[in-house]
């Protein structure tokens, strides 16, 4: 008896997973929209959480399965609301998100304070699927909504000698129970080198899963720097300073042995309290093995050249 022959399919004809997943999601959304339209008289209010998606650039897709929206929005490190992973999703929704402004200032020709609703219109919103690798050794795959940070920086025209950008998170003690504890020197400050900040991969994020960011994910706007550990992607931004000198970031001040300025994902440089060689993918089943961590979280092809000639073991 002959062997069962399966028809062979060239790899090029396989629909990439994000594509079909996207189609499924699109179909679900279309279904929901239809249902919504039918129910229109009953709920005559537009969905104020949805954000328009202008594009889904294929160069920002990754082949991994998306982390569920539930996990993305309930498993968060946002210490202003507490150190437990579910503290932010339980406590952050009281934080007032409008009006919200972000001051962009420092070594720029046109310092400006932006209203977040104007920033939403500054450039078309793109959906990009990024891997997120937390310094604690877990990772997610997240469909962010936003645009490259350089769109905002271009608008304020950094001066020629500006070399760094610092990002400051909101500090609202009455809504943030976590800031009463001296875990960090609040407010939270993060920083990037100018070329990192201007890199197209560095994203200013307003939404996730097609909706406005939930407060616990850093609403109304945050960074996503996918080749760096998650702590570099500051949340709920109120201030962006363009600087000539390197800023000190909250984590490198709190624990200089554990966190450097760069925070690039690097399996070869272990964290003092754990290895960085592998990671646990959130959403995998309980007994799934850890997966190897990629240098620059798999974005080395796009960003490794930023660090030519640098010893990344020293500049971690």
């Amino acid at each position, binding site marked *: 008896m002959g062997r069962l022959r399966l028809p062979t399919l060239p790899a090029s004809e396989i629909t990439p997973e994000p594509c079909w997943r996207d189609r499924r999601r699109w179909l679900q959304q279309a279904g929901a929209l239809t249902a919504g339209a039918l129910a229109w008289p009953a709920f005559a209010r537009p969905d104020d959480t949805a954000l328009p998606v202008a594009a889904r650039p294929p160069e920002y897709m990754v082949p991994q399965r998306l982390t569920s929206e539930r996990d993305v929005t309930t498993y968060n490190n946002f210490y202003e609301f507490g150190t437990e*992973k579910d503290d932010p999703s339980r406590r952050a929704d009281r934080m007032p998100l409008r009006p919200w402004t972000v001051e962009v200032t420092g070594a720029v020709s046109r310092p400006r304070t932006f209203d977040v609703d104007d920033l939403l219109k500054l450039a078309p919103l793109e959906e990009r699927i990024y891997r997120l690798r937390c310094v604690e050794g877990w990772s997610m795959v997240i469909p962010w909504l936003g645009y490259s940070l350089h769109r905002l920086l271009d608008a304020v025209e950094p001066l020629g000698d500006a070399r760094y950008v610092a990002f400051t998170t909101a500090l609202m003690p009455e809504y943030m129970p976590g800031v009463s504890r001296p*875990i960090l020197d609040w407010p939270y400050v993060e920083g990037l080198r100018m070329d990192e900040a201007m890199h197209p991969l560095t994203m200013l994020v307003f939404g996730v899963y097609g909706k406005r960011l939930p407060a616990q994910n850093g609403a109304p706007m945050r960074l996503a720097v996918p080749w760096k550990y998650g702590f570099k992607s500051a949340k709920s931004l109120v201030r962006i300073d363009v600087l000539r000198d390197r800023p000190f970031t909250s984590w490198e001040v*709190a624990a200089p042995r*554990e966190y450097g300025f760069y925070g690039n994902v690097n399996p070869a440089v*272990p964290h*003092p309290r754990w290895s960085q060689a592998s990671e646990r993918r959130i959403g995998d089943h309980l007994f799934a093995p850890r997966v190897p961590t990629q240098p620059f979280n798999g974005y080395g092809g796009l960003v490794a050249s930023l660090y030519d000639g640098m010893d990344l073991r020293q500049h971690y």
Partner: protein
Amino acid sequence: MQPYGIVLFALWPALYWTGRALGPGLGADPAAYLLKSSGWWSLALLLATLLLPLLARACRRPGWLAGRRVLGLAAFSYAALHLLGWAWWECNFMPAWMGRDIVQRPFVLVGVLGFAPLLLLALTSTAGWKRRLGAWWFRLHRGIHVAAVLSVLHFWLLREGKNDLLEPALFGGALVLLWVVRRCWR
């Protein structure tokens, strides 16, 4: 006869995990949750083991003393699960990874060292060993204090990097308080 309340207390974490696993689930990162919870409960049960004689005395219920073995064995069991969880979820059961983890990271080393007395005490917890060792058994079983100190230190070192020392400080404070009460209340 074992005091049933104490047995239930010792089993509570395992029952709670099972209930959560069958119901709402163990959260986005069940591995991290179980690792943390097993370690936390092991330390809590160690302290409960040390607290029980004081409680029994205060309440004049010498029958409760029998519960020390149950509580101690439960502390050992959760520590064993914690260690097993580390070996799998942190090290994929790779001896080389585990070895490297122990050598490179003081808090892992302290945790493993803290498990050694627990293992020894669990193995010698039977009536037979107690009889065979005689007076030595009591000296040996003071090792619970070594395990408690190393466990608190392990927890402290883990949280140190994140400046999040409230919980280890509370456990450490409770341990010191237990010692003081034991000493002053003779």
